[in-house]
């Protein structure tokens, strides 16, 4: 069985991103930077109705706009529209202006339907408009039961009930979804902004009925995906169709407006939780009813990767007596998709809020309450490390006891990501030149997490070279197949693969050069003996070098202005593990990003829809609020390195507990629970009883 070296020079140390200079100088080419010969802009016409039957679409006037080279429709007619923003047609033209003008003159014959519903609670009612004809919007509840809840509650010393809700969170990676795509007689090349070049290749080939070998997907650089960008997407297929018609490459990158409507989101959750513990603080009974919407994805269509509305309950805690009922509600809105740790941030927020509420009722320190009920030994260790670092015992005060108008509070919460692991079919190759140059090729993609650098670090360690001596090429379906970058699996997939490629390379070099050890100072001598031809070696993922299930806990300190409701996060401490740390600096960066995203979920982000018109009211960064630099606190990351476990990914767990920790810190500060995300000044003031009741005149 393979094993990682114990004495390391690069692994578990910090190597700055090897592609940082390219990114900083603008040399790095993202999908929208591709300047393929004769390229055109592509743009999409979306439904301005939340519900309609499109009878026909006339593209003639659009085609007559000067500069327009192609116009296509998305579907055959009649097309049923189920949400505001659903794609209807697309155009390609020489300028953005031409495309915008063309979209405005497309003629649509439609039967507009006034029956639609965008609100979860309305959609659950018996007389609600149906998103999918003939099907109730709410699915039949799925019930999981163990033990005996009904007899367990009376045995509890303390019981709390709460209604914890989370909004729909939109996918707003810095780089929007889209591609530059060229479809000629020779085949199709798509420079796509994707987390999965292979899945996009397969998706395009399937949708366009092309031989897989005729489709090449390239993702040199990429500005974030978070679960939204595994498939070709409607926009990817449209770019291809436009390219074919225009006989030119088409750059179809979504606008920020587009991005808010139709590329997936995190489902909402409405969690009614009843939970009880015995007098010694042992969780004893848990009953929950949860519903949430995955948009139209809660009905018949889960296009783009699904993302159901169910969440793990009672999350990472073991309760002997539980009854959990969950159902999904369809509304006339864009479908959900996988979103960084699907199901987990809402589950963590609900359960961790309930944990604190119950701890307060029991008169226990919430951290002690967790230590008592969290069965995971790694988190036990992390809580203890974090508590010491955070000075928990010193800082913890009874809820609401902070004096004055500006109240401070602290809270904590935990993450679980039992999934993860590795994609065992990952392959890679290296080409070693007689001059000592070495190039790795993996059909993985670097979505901004530092995948290139991880490859260089592992290779440098194994070969006794420096990371800057390693050339890394990723993001091309012509390379050996790699994993999709999702589920916190990338690092655990590629690190063992690179390990294997290096092992094969050293073995071959030894054979061909006659040198006992080709590493380090012998490298160039060994390579020189290759003669004229480069050595190409192939490797694949090997067992024993990676694992799954990262944990992690986070602590938050906040200050709340009890007169204005403004929450200021003062500090977040994250204590995380992910097995063997490969590169500390990019790992910390990823955790920082997870925490900031979690802050957005806690305090700012929410898709707002209008009941009457069915539109998304905040399809922009003006009113879909994201954390800015002025909002971001001091973030401290403490890592536990566990080489014995092998490599584990970190993407998901780093964002899971942040909202729960912040919500608990807020409750601790003000002595009242804001049980609904995002925690806005309006909700703080309401929780404090300062908002006069609304009287409907």
């Amino acid at each position, binding site marked *: 069985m393979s094993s990682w070296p114990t004495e390391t020079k690069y692994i578990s140390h910090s190597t700055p991103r090897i592609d940082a200079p390219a990114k900083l100088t603008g040399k790095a080419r993202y999908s929208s930077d591709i300047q393929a010969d004769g390229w055109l802009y592509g743009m999409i016409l979306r439904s301005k109705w939340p519900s309609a039957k499109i009878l026909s679409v006339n593209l003639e006037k659009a085609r007559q706009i000067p500069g327009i080279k192609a116009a296509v429709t998305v579907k055959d007619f009649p097309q049923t529209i189920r949400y505001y923003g659903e794609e209807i047609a697309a155009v390609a033209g020489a300028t953005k202006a031409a495309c915008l003008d063309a979209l405005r003159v497309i003629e649509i014959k439609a039967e507009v339907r006034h029956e639609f519903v965008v609100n979860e609670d309305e959609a659950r009612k018996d007389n609600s408009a149906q998103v999918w004809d003939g099907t109730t919007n709410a699915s039949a509840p799925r019930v999981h039961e163990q033990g005996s809840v009904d007899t367990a509650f009376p045995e509890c010393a303390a019981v709390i009930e709460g209604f914890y809700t989370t909004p729909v969170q939109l996918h707003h990676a810095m780089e929007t979804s889209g591609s530059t795509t060229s479809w000629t007689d020779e085949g199709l090349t798509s420079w796509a902004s994707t987390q999965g070049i292979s899945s996009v290749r397969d998706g395009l080939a399937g949708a366009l009925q092309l031989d897989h070998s005729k489709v090449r997907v390239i993702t040199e650089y990429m500005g974030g995906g978070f679960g939204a960008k595994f498939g070709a997407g409607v926009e990817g297929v449209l770019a291809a169709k436009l390219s074919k018609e225009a006989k030119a490459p088409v750059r179809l990158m979504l606008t920020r407006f587009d991005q808010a409507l139709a590329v997936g989101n995190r489902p909402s959750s409405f969690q009614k939780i009843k939970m009880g513990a015995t007098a010694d603080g042992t969780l004893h009974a848990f009953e929950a009813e949860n519903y949430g919407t995955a948009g139209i994805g809660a009905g018949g269509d889960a296009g783009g990767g699904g993302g159901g509305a169910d969440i793990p309950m009672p999350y990472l805690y073991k309760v002997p007596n539980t009854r959990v009922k969950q159902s999904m509600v369809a509304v006339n809105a864009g479908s959900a998709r996988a979103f960084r740790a699907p199901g987990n941030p809402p589950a963590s927020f609900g359960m961790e809020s309930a944990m604190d509420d119950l701890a307060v009722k029991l008169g226990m320190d919430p951290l002690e309450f967790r230590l008592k009920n969290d069965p995971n030994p790694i988190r036990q260790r992390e809580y203890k490390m974090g508590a010491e670092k955070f000075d928990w015992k010193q800082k913890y005060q009874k809820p609401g006891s902070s004096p004055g108008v500006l109240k401070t509070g602290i809270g904590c919460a935990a993450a679980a990501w039992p999934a993860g692991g590795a994609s065992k079919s990952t392959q890679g190759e290296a080409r070693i030149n007689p001059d000592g140059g070495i190039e790795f090729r993996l059909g993985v993609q670097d979505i901004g997490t530092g995948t290139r650098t991880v490859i260089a670090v592992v290779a440098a360690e194994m070969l006794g070279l420096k990371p800057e001596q390693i050339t890394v090429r990723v993001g091309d379906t012509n390379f050996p197949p790699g994993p999709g970058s999702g589920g916190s699996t990338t690092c655990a997939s590629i690190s063992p693969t690179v390990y294997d490629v290096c092992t094969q390379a050293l073995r071959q070099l030894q054979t061909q050069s006659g040198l006992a050890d080709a590493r380090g100072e012998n490298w160039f001598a060994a390579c020189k003996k290759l003669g004229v031809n480069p050595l190409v070696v192939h490797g694949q993922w090997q067992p024993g070098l990676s694992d799954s299930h990262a944990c992690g806990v986070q602590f938050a300190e906040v200050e709340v202005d009890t007169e204005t*409701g403004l929450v200021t996060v003062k500090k977040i401490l994250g204590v995380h593990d992910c097995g063997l740390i490969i590169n500390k600096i990019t790992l910390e960066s990823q955790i920082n990003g997870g925490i900031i995203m979690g802050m957005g979920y806690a305090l700012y982000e929410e898709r707002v829809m209008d009941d009457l018109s069915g539109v998304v009211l905040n399809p922009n960064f003006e009113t879909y609020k994201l954390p800015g630099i002025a*909002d971001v606190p001091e973030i401290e990351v403490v890592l536990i390195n566990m080489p014995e476990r092998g490599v584990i990914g970190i993407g998901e767990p780093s964002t899971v507990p942040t909202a729960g920790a912040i919500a608990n810190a807020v409750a601790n500060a003000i002595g009242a629970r804001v049980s609904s995300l995002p925690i806005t000044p*309006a909700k703080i003031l309401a929780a404090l009883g300062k908002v006069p009741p609304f009287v409907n005149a």
Partner: protein
Amino acid sequence: MKAFRYATAHSTDSARELVAGTGAYLAGGNDLLGLLKDYLINAPEILVNIKSLPGLNKIERGDKFWTVGSLVTVAQIENHAEIKMVFPGLHEAASEVASQQIRNVATVGGNLAQHSRCWYFRHRDTVCLKKTGDLCYARNGENRYHSLFTGNTCISPVVSSLATIFTSLGATAIVLREGKETRMSMAELYHRAWENPLAHNSLNNGDLILRVEIPTTRGRSAYLQVSDKHAFDWALVSCAAAAEVRDGKLKSPRVALGSISPVPHQVEAANDFLDGKVLDDAAATHAADMILQDAQPLKHNAYKVPLAHALIRRTLLKLNGDA
């Protein structure tokens, strides 16, 4: 965006001539270009670049009043060392506007004349009252950012931070209207928005704000706003206060609020109440009660009442300063 002609004016007369009919003045363009791109207003046939108009980009000191040209940028105000001393509230208001990049190009005239930020008005596919539709969607819809006061059915609030502080400072806008300089108080500059849902201020097409005169009679001023976020976010409520303080007593105090009414919200009775008072927590609280007593909160914006109350008290108490 619809095609338009473009011309640069070098005098106010030529600007007025060029814009006549359905033209629009272009200065910083932050608001105008967004409106045009989203087809939210009747498209002007011509955009008249006024950035080269002489004399309008100056801040001029004076004993009785200061003059701020309409082409002065928000950043110029923010970075003006003397303004920070003489009109601290103006400095504070300017520094809260949008982001540094926007402040660098946004002008005083543009900030005052900016259109509604109501998300129904700004939405490309809703036709609300403000866009000649027959319904205010916000009234029974998502109104968390909307007004507590209005004189008509539309509840889109004024969001100009500068209007709020200028109101409290008793500033006057000098507007070129049909060739004549017309003096308008801030109340007059916005009054039409109070009664007419189609208006966001009292300017007619072709009117051009030339400058703002700020009397120096109020030596103390302060501005505070609270947003959902800590920077680059619209105020949920903003509040400005200004007064002279003599022998510990307020003289000519004025309080104004933004984001809770289509006009900068002020209550004369509250100003009168404060006049001659020693400013303490009780006086500030009573003034806040008076200013908000007729508020008509809707389903999602009632939180603005306690928030505004807190801001009024805090802004007023800032006037006591260290002196």
